[in-house]
């Protein structure tokens, strides 16, 4: 009897214990407080209304778990076979219409409540009207990097999105129009909004209205090929002043600095121009990121490396070094040529 009882207790408590331990784990183990793009640290209306909804759903499902799981655990414990039992079989019960009816109706009621709450949030987020002041950005997914176009501002940039902060008094939401140049991608910055896919031939839209300035990270969330893991996203939420300064700077043509003319010459005579644009030069390619203001970005290759002189050098020498499979070829340039190129690129503020 002892043995059976102990076994039953172990049996019941283990899953529950595991669950409890693991529930506490993220708090103890998630490294670094602010770095995580958690869906429970929202900073924009779509993300926070999703969070509110998710607490509600968690409460209901948690309640169901505790009730049903508790009944199950208790039944296993209470009705375990004991050594003292005789050989007789327990009473056979084949069913009960009343009981079964009751436990059909309760889930139906729960579904009605969950559905209505969910539907309200779907419409609130998805069909939100676009205000006049909204900023428009077109996002184009490419195999392993992001292109951002600001059609009304005449800006084209890559991988690091700048948007103005929005507030209740001065709402300034950003509406993203999502396109793809090749395969499916998905735009996901958890703290700002849920994800929306970028699908070729199937334009999508989403919006964000970040309430706090700062950097929000995310990444492509639809498998898009070999370097899908390194298709990272950075969204900078700027104060209105910072944003205006950034816009002004981005609208300048590429910097002209005669001290790096050699590097510029290499850039313009090598294949770089087929894939990259630098406004004000002969380079007008669109297959790769626009480099006109490369130095205004903190990272290169969609977040695969920090934007430093050494990293630029390593990248041009062999893109596979950071991102094996990236769609930029190694150009077989000499060390000096790359030095000159990098010297030129680092003037592109």
């Amino acid at each position, binding site marked *: 009897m002892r043995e059976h009882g102990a076994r*039953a207790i172990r049996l019941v408590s283990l899953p529950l214990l595991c669950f409890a331990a693991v529930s506490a784990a993220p708090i103890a183990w998630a490294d670094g407080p602010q770095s995580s793009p958690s869906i429970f640290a929202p900073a924009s209306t779509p993300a926070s209304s999703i969070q509110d909804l998710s607490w509600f759903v968690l409460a209901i499902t948690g309640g169901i778990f505790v009730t049903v799981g508790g009944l199950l655990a208790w039944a296993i414990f209470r009705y375990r076979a004991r050594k003292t039992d005789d050989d007789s079989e327990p009473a056979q019960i084949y069913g009960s219409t009343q009981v079964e009816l009751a436990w059909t109706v309760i889930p139906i009621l729960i579904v009605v409540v969950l*559905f209505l709450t969910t539907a309200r949030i*779907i419409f609130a987020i998805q069909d939100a009207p676009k205000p006049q002041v909204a900023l428009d950005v077109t996002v184009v997914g490419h195999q392993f990097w992001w292109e951002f176009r600001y059609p009304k501002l005449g800006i084209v940039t890559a991988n690091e999105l700048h948007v103005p902060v929005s507030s209740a008094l001065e709402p300034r939401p950003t509406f993203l129009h999502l396109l793809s140049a090749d395969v499916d991608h998905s735009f996901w910055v958890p703290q700002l909004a849920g*994800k929306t896919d970028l699908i070729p031939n199937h334009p999508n839209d989403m919006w964000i209205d970040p309430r706090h300035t700062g950097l929000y990270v995310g990444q492509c969330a639809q498998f898009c090929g070999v370097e899908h893991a390194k298709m990272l996203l950075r969204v900078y939420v700027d104060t209105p002043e910072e944003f205006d300064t950034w816009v002004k700077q981005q609208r300048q043509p590429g910097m002209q600095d005669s001290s790096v003319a050699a590097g510029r010459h290499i850039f313009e005579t090598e294949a770089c121009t087929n894939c990259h644009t630098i406004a004000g030069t002969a380079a007008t390619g669109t297959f790769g990121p626009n480099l006109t203001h490369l130095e205004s970005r903190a990272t290169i290759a969609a977040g695969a490396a920090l934007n430093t002189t050494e990293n630029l050098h390593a990248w041009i020498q062999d893109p596979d070094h950071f991102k094996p499979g990236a769609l930029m070829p190694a150009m077989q340039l000499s060390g000096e040529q790359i030095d000159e190129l990098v010297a030129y690129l680092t003037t592109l503020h």
Partner: protein
Amino acid sequence: MADQTLPIAGSLDVTPQRLSRAQVLEWLHGWVVTVDHKRLGILYVVYGIIFLLVAGAEAMAIRIQLAWPGMHFLSPELYNEMFTMHGTTMVFLVGMTILFGFANYLVPLMIGARDMAFPRLNAFSFWMTAFGGLLIYYSFIGGFGLYGMGAAPDVGWWAYAPLTARAFSPGHATDYWALALIVAGFGTLGTAINIIATALSMRCRGMSLLRMPLFVWLMLVTSALTLITITPLTAAQIMLLIDRYLGGHFFDTQAGGSAVVWMHFFWIFGHPEVYVLVMPAFGIANEIIPVFSRKAIFGYPAMVAASVGIAFVSMGVWAHHMFTVGMTSVGNAFFVLSTMLVGIPTGIKIFNWVATIWGGKIRFATPMLFCLGFLFQFLIAGLTGIMLSVAPWNWQLHNSYFVIAHFHYVLVGAIVFNIFAGIYYWYPKVTGRMLSETLGKWHFWLFLIGFHITFDTMHFVGFLGMPRSIYTYEPDRGWNHLNFIISIGGMIQGIAVLIFAWNLVQSYFRGRKAGNDPWDAWTLEWSTPSPPPAYNFATDPVVHSRRPLWDLKHPEDPDWKYEA
């Protein structure tokens, strides 16, 4: 009883003999040409277990790579091949084959028949499926054809267009994937037809539809669902091949094709497919839980109705895999509702299982332990499914590790747990010997612990924004330790499965003799010798209730007095 004891036993020469080459060949030949449902069932299950080990090894490789950020254990290409092959193998070559193997072995025995309705179709189906598996694994060697370089499919088991177009997936790996699934799919269709015909027309006298064991009911419903669900998959694969080789533009977005149409085709297959996998697992639980609780299943008619209900509703929910592709708000709301509706019959099933245990005398043998694990885990899996069906929340959770956690809770926590339960339960019938209970307990507890360490934790990295299908991640995202824990749990499960494999082998030679009915069970298969003779039943059985052996064992209190 069958003719196990020959009248002239004493006159037989029993000196041990070396097996000659001819004998081995004959034995092998016997297995290849067999049309016996029991042998085919065994072939299916063994085949599935071999692939379980293969796909398990792929999972281990994946988890080593992700144990810490910036690992270089697998190259990005190889990582993508690993998760594609892991998913494809587990769904098509492990889940489907083992469960259909159970059906093959058990359905005729449970309904008192001597074989399936179409024994030759049965053999054909198995070998088609087997060939499909070899075909897809051959791509490791021949994926690039002329270049002689190996490569496996690397587009994900969902294989979204246009990544599968020739422009983005050159070489032949994707072709192997598409062809293999077409071939294996025909095998699956054949078996489904066979099971339907068998369950409908081969039942013994007295076994009305409402006296069929629930396992048979669930296989019947599953097979009907299979016929509906495999068809769009096959169609889509053919369209994909037309795109790749005959200049079609179904999914070629550069030429006006539609990526979204592929998604619809895939998930019209894909969602019902997950029910094709889970319903046989329900069937196993429906057999085991009553026997080890010593009670009849609670609410048999409701269980049947819920199964049929789930099958129907599950055909109208597929786009809950597509909440982020930009459907209209009304479209999203529709699929929220239909998905949540699945929760109702699912809930009924769980309640009925709890009620079956209630008032019983539970025996904690290994099969029952696995079934109890299943009950808890399936409860949680259903609840995370409800969370995922809340479209706005899905916009966050979709394609994150939360989804991986949800479906592994179902596929491992429910289906694999029940497959293990089923193997512990029926192995004595199939081989005549019991599996070791000691190793079984080790297997159960290690697997349970490993399972929870891995998959509970995955929910939380999902909350922290970690997407699926990535071969590495940034060190500053707060995911490092959690991933390390997940990987440890994976290894523990790996060890548990090896113990299981060892148990299977050693018990075959040294296990305790089982006898006809080691669990004191109630369905017809336990009335035959273990292993059953080729013809199953010497005389056609006649049944009067859902538990014919209960009636025999309790003539004073038979079931047929109570059943409606």
